[in-house]
């Protein structure tokens, strides 16, 4: 080309070899952001989409109007589940690395989002998760064994071998089936919430997408429908700074926060410290109350960091500094809650270590049990003919022949 390009190309603050640089992140001091009434008008609370709602301070105390004042039991619960999420992910990562499952995606560094929100929502509220919300499934009663069996595609797999690992679902837990297609769950959540309102029920819905996924059409559809019908829904954007190899600026995060995305439709946005369990919990209670009282949808942006690789297929050292997570100014959500518990006198390093060991043992025991239902290399096996089930409620006639043919081939096959 003869002339120089003038296109603006967003640039992350640091690439491999560079010093991590999070100066682009606007941070508010813990406790400094006002908490409005749940019936506040969207336009009066725009500051919430710009400032950062934080409760846990650097000195480990809980501060300000958003402090949910959780009792020791609740705090213990939260810590336990976050830790379980972490320990589970670590084990599953290892297991994948040993070639015993085909794929895995950890939530490392983002555990507070799922756990705080699972705790803040009511059981009748319906969750439409993304693939990094395993914590929701755990908290809502899906056993570790069941989750592992899903990842193993074994005889106890809730997905009957049909889905990639981590694509859980739980009808009894009111957690929707995870899709491989980014963002598709967002309009489902809004539709579900609309139906709840139509039926005059007061269950609400919640959904989660990543920063990168906000560029998809379904994000826009969901916001539009939520705004038009004032659907009782909480729409979460988990801004973990990365979408595989592209930083959040590539999704449009350079100039405004993701929390601001709904402002143009009158949807209030809350930008929350995504590594601060108390802040998330509190923001979620607030948004849920808004929704339940007929004040419509809320968009919550969780500012966090994807501590691990995108998935077992990814190598982040190719596109970001190795030590970025260490330098992330909002720290590690587990460490921060642990220190808060210690600060409050509810917890100690020893107890913490003991809990980790306990959870590791729990996960290990689950893994041992899960394998009994089959692994990738050892039986028992699912019936492959089950692939013809559940495509329809009433199976198609043509499936009979195909099923028969498949089983014949399994038994006799060609001669090679």
């Amino acid at each position: 080309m003869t002339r120089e390009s003038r296109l603006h190309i967003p640039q992350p603050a640091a690439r491999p070899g560079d010093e991590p640089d999070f100066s682009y992140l606007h941070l508010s001091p813990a406790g400094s952001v006002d908490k409005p009434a749940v019936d506040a008008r969207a336009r009066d609370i725009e500051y919430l989409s710009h400032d950062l709602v934080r409760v846990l301070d650097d000195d480990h105390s809980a501060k300000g109007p958003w402090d949910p004042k959780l009792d020791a039991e609740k705090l213990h619960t939260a810590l336990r589940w976050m830790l379980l999420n972490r320990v589970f992910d670590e084990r599953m990562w290892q297991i994948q690395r040993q070639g015993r499952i085909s794929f895995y995606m950890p939530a490392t560094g983002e555990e507070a989002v799922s756990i705080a929100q699972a705790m803040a929502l009511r059981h009748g509220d319906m969750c439409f998760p993304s693939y990094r919300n395993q914590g929701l499934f755990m908290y809502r009663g899906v056993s570790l064994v069941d989750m592992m069996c899903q990842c193993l595609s074994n005889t106890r797999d809730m997905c009957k071998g049909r889905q990639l690992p981590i694509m859980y679902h739980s009808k009894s837990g009111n957690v929707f089936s995870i899709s491989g297609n980014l963002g598709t769950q967002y309009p489902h959540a809004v539709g579900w919430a609309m139906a709840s309102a139509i039926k005059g029920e007061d269950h609400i819905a919640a959904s989660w997408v990543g920063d990168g996924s906000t560029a998809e059409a379904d994000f826009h559809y969901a916001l539009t429908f939520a705004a038009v019908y004032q659907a009782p829904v909480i729409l979460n954007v988990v801004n973990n700074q990365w979408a595989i190899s592209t930083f959040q600026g590539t999704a449009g995060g350079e100039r405004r926060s993701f929390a601001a995305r709904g402002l143009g439709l009158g949807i209030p946005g809350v930008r929350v410290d995504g590594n601060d369990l108390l802040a998330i919990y509190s923001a979620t209670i607030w948004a849920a109350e808004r929704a339940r009282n007929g004040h419509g949808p809320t968009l919550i942006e969780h500012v966090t960091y994807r501590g691990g690789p995108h998935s077992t297929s990814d190598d982040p050292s190719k596109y970001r500094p190795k030590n970025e997570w260490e330098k992330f100014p909002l720290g590690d959500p587990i460490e921060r809650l642990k220190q808060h518990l210690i600060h409050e006198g509810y917890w100690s390093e020893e107890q913490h270590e003991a809990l980790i060991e306990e959870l590791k043992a729990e996960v290990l025991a689950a893994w041992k049990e899960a394998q009994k239902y089959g692994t990738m290399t050892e039986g028992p096996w699912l019936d492959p003919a089950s692939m013809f089930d559940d495509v329809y409620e009433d199976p198609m006639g043509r499936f009979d022949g195909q099923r028969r043919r498949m089983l014949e081939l399994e038994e006799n096959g060609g001669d090679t």
Partner: protein
Amino acid sequence: MAQMNMIEAIRDAMDITMAKDPNVIVIGEDIGYFGGVFRCTDGLQDKYGEHRVIDAPIAEGGIIGAAIGMGVNGLRPIVEIQFADYIYPGFDQIVSELAKLRYRSCGEFFSPVTIRTPCGGGIRGGQTHSQSPESIFTHVSGIKTVMPSNPYDAKGLLISAIESDDPVIFFEPKRIYNGPFDGDPDKPSVSWASHPKGEVPEGHYTVAIGEAEIVREGSEMTIVTYGTLVHVAIAAAEATGVDVEIIDVRSLSPLDITTITESVKKTGRCIVAHEATRFGGYGAELAATIQNDCFYHLEAPVSRLAGWDTPYPHAFEWQYFPGKKRMVAGIRKIMEAAA
């Protein structure tokens, strides 16, 4: 029995299911207060209220996505997509979500959405208001695809679709909303009032999804078709004097292949016909299966008659439309080939 056109029959199906089941709702563009650009939902909002007959933003993907979520929450949504040509923005939600939900969750979740959409040309709609994209949907595992050719079937099939827990794409050939059409645009238009299939029982009845209908018996040749072309085939058969058996497929997926192959085995000759473009069209699936299943009975190759492989042109609808002329020529050719 009442006399109804297809619009009335479709409306009646919705009315009856809505009256019966409070979970049935309708959502779409201009379908509420206004009653739909083709009037299919006229009066329903008055009767069932704005909370069950919902005017939606212009966002096909959003409508379908939201309907899926509603279905998961116990409602039974009927979606109207204003023209089949505008279903594509909702394609991902149909293919990746609606179709796959039951399978991927092993039946724990499903969403009984019915998507109604007018298709086909012949109303001077140009290439963006005339498409027949049905074959694309028949290739997708997890959805059912239906296209009625008359008011009786429209009502019965639509009730089946709405009541089915499986998602159904329900194509409405808009050229025959008001009357059967034999492909001759110069003839005065006929209404459903004088047509036996315009006689529609009041109240609830169903036409099963997955059953083809022999609409004309014959011994010399079988025409397998659906939608508007059913009427073209009847007229063409009559014009030739050939003893043609005509099968209205009605349900494209699941396909009632038995009725079709039995007929072709009997007649030994077959034309597959539709309005959609030919290449990769639904006729290919029909022809491929028929030649396989009836090979030893065929006296001539299975022939396909379809829209040309170009977008539907505004000015040349009747040169584009696979009408009576082409059908007659097609019938003659096969009879000669087989002779």
